[in-house]
């Protein structure tokens, strides 16, 4: 039984699978796998029409685009917008702020659902498990506007809940304005994300855990494995592929900070650390009607995303994981 556990399912699978068909002439392959190709058709059509057809839109990064003049009428300006982005005095700061938030996101917000899903999985009272699950995913439905309003209720310097505790329990009446200060900005943003996203994030891992064959646990128990060894040898391997896939996918969006949340939490006092690409583009691009500039920033983020996503996929494969493809 122990050998069964140790053998990764992949190894068993490879032997029974047909070999990769690269060598087979294309016509033969199409004929042989016609059903599979047929199943691909609607999806491929979708991506062609709704994703690739509009791709010509990225060309406006090299224009001074005006909606009224359209793609053909707007003047070409080459790399002007990229120069403006990279040579701007704010570029280094924006990049640093964006990357720090991304790193904190990976460190806390990405990992929290995995841990909570594992904790929920260990919960044996079913009714409790279900209730907790149902409660913690509700915040996903609240907009950032509401989350910001609730944060204010909690952290307001004047009559916030925290300020109230500081006063009543500690006799501290300094009235710190947490939401205004640079040193609290990242903490608050990450806390908000944890609150809003953790419960929702567990769903995907719980779905993965639901797929674990109970016989594996049974077998492990018969081998004398305790709770923690079962967790280590059965549960973790079961969700690892999902975690890896989620991590690779997340890497592609590393430079996305989420405009609305950051925008709502930015104040005159914390802008130095709060401003990220997404909010900066809002000022420079959207508010100014400068589509070309915001597209240029989008293009830059896209290139970074492609490098990150393919890079982490390669890394995952190097580390013996399956990766995305």
């Amino acid at each position: 039984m122990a050998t069964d556990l140790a053998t990764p399912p992949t190894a068993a699978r490879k032997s029974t699978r047909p070999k990769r068909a690269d060598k087979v002439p294309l016509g033969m392959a199409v004929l042989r796998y016609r059903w599979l190709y047929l199943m691909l058709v609607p999806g491929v059509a979708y991506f062609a029409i709704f994703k690739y057809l509009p791709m010509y839109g990225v060309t406006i990064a090299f224009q001074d685009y005006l909606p009224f003049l359209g793609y053909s009428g707007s003047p070409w300006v080459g790399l002007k917008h990229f120069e403006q982005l990279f040579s701007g005095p704010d570029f280094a700061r924006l990049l640093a702020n964006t990357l720090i938030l991304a790193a904190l996101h990976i460190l806390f917000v990405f990992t929290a659902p995995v841990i909570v899903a594992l904790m929920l999985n260990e919960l044996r009272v079913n009714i409790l498990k279900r209730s907790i699950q149902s409660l913690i995913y509700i915040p996903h439905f609240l907009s950032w506007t509401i989350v910001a309003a609730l944060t204010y209720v909690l952290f307001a310097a004047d009559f916030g809940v925290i300020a109230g505790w500081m006063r009543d329990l500690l006799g501290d009446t300094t009235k710190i304005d947490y939401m205004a200060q640079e040193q609290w900005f990242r903490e608050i943003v990450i806390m908000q994300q944890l609150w809003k996203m953790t419960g929702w994030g567990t769903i995907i891992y719980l779905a993965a855990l639901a797929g674990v064959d109970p016989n594996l646990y049974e077998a492990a128990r018969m081998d004398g494995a305790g709770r923690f060894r079962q967790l280590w040898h059965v549960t973790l391997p079961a969700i690892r592929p999902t975690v890896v896939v989620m991590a690779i996918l997340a890497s592609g969006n590393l430079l996305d900070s989420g405009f609305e949340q950051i925008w709502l939490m930015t104040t005159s006092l914390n802008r130095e650390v709060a401003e990220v690409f997404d909010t900066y583009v809002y000022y420079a691009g959207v508010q100014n009607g400068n589509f070309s500039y915001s597209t240029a920033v989008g293009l830059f983020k896209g290139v970074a995303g492609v490098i990150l996503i393919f890079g982490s996929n390669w890394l995952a494969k190097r580390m013996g994981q399956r990766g995305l493809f």
Partner: protein
Amino acid sequence: MSASRRRRLLAGVLTLTAALTASACSGGGEAAQSDPNTITFMAKLFGTAPEPTGELQQAIEKFLGKKIKVTWVPNAEYTEKMNVTLASDSIPQVVVVDPKMPAFVKAAQAGAFWDLTDKLDKYPNLKPTDAQTALNASVNGKTYGLYRMRPLLRSAIIIRKDWLEKVGLKEPTTVDEFYEVAKAFTEKDPDGNGKKDTYGLIIPKWPSSSYASASPYDVVETWFGAPNGWGERDGKVVPGFDTPEFIEANKFLKKMVDEGLINPDFATLDTAKWNEPFFHGRGGMIIDVNIRSRQVLDLFRENGDKDYGDKVTMVGNLARSDGKKFSYPFTGYADSLAISKQSVRTEAELDNVLKTLDKLATKEGQVLLQNGIEGRNFKVDNGDTATLINVDDPAVRTVQDNVDDAFTQLSTKGTMDIGGIAYQRIPPFQPYRDIIDKQKKLVEEDLKTAVHNVALPVVAPTQVEKGPQIDKIIGDARVKFLSGAIDEAGLKAEIQKWHDGGGTQIITEVNDLLAKLPK
């Protein structure tokens, strides 16, 4: 199981294909319609959209003798919708738009909208009632739309009347008295709970971090004699923050912050919660538009306070220490109705649209847009004020909502707040009437000392290019200075940063453009 699943799958795929084919054939050309008997609009929507068959819309159509078709767009996403609409060829004929919005300025200059500069004189109701406001709403002297008239002077201080009595002070008229009141509100326990837990002035996190955006800071600076946005100094037009009065005013505010006379969370307090400290008895004064006085009256009244009229009073702009008074005016307009060249192609079509708008700008038309249907949702008192009637009838409520949430956006001659050429709306309670009477007097008085922003008519190219990025330098620096994050030298350094980041260029352009304006 699997058989039925397959059937369902098949059914789904068929529906999908059918839908795609069907819609692919019906689609195409809604654009380029120019039925002279239908006028199309795009306007901001607050709340819920009116039904095209609704009572009010029908009344308006009957009045105009034409069909109207309005694309109502929720206010929060108006810019996005505007941009996709500009890119497609299905733009409505008349569009409500901020005439200074960079995207609009660029589009108008590229020829997307009609230049109405010399075209309005032959329409009696479209001819600007105030030449200065018309110039203010223009783009470097060119009129790309009909400006929507709004109250010119709206700044005021709303004060807890009961607190004033408690601390034994009279209504302030100068900044020094204002300071005294704020100090007494902070230190003399105006709420009588025995604790020092109040402050004088409530300032929220201003939604726009730009300089000169009608924030309480901007108003106080004007009191101290700084230009309102832009003003003339030694024959040259300069931004307000380049004057010593700006520094002076902010030092005054900084002193108030340091002494605890302003709420400690002025950098973060949500504007939506601005009234709360006032109502809850934590803060005693608000510097904002005068109509806020009615909002706080609402709060006290809804709370079941019988003497709610004794809780709120209002004063106008303040004189500075040497007795000189400078009042803070607004722009006198908000947004314009611009006419698209894409959907109104010829002069004849333009004439048709303008004639319709002209009719809409008559008293009867404006009453429909701003008040509703007389005898249905309001009645006229004393010949000049509107009182709501039948408020409990759901059908009438719909008419009222259609006015408030939607159609008032198309009005060009004032709002229900000041009436304009329609009727002013007044709640049927004495304290409201009292405060509105007072408001009228204050406005009249303050208009005499109003300091106008001389640069309103011009849009500097560098401002369009870089404005939003560098504008916030000043707004941020001001708050940083008040909170103590930077000192006076730091504030001046930030102002220098504005100059270096394109501000110097903007000053030159503004001066050049102003010189070129038609006198």
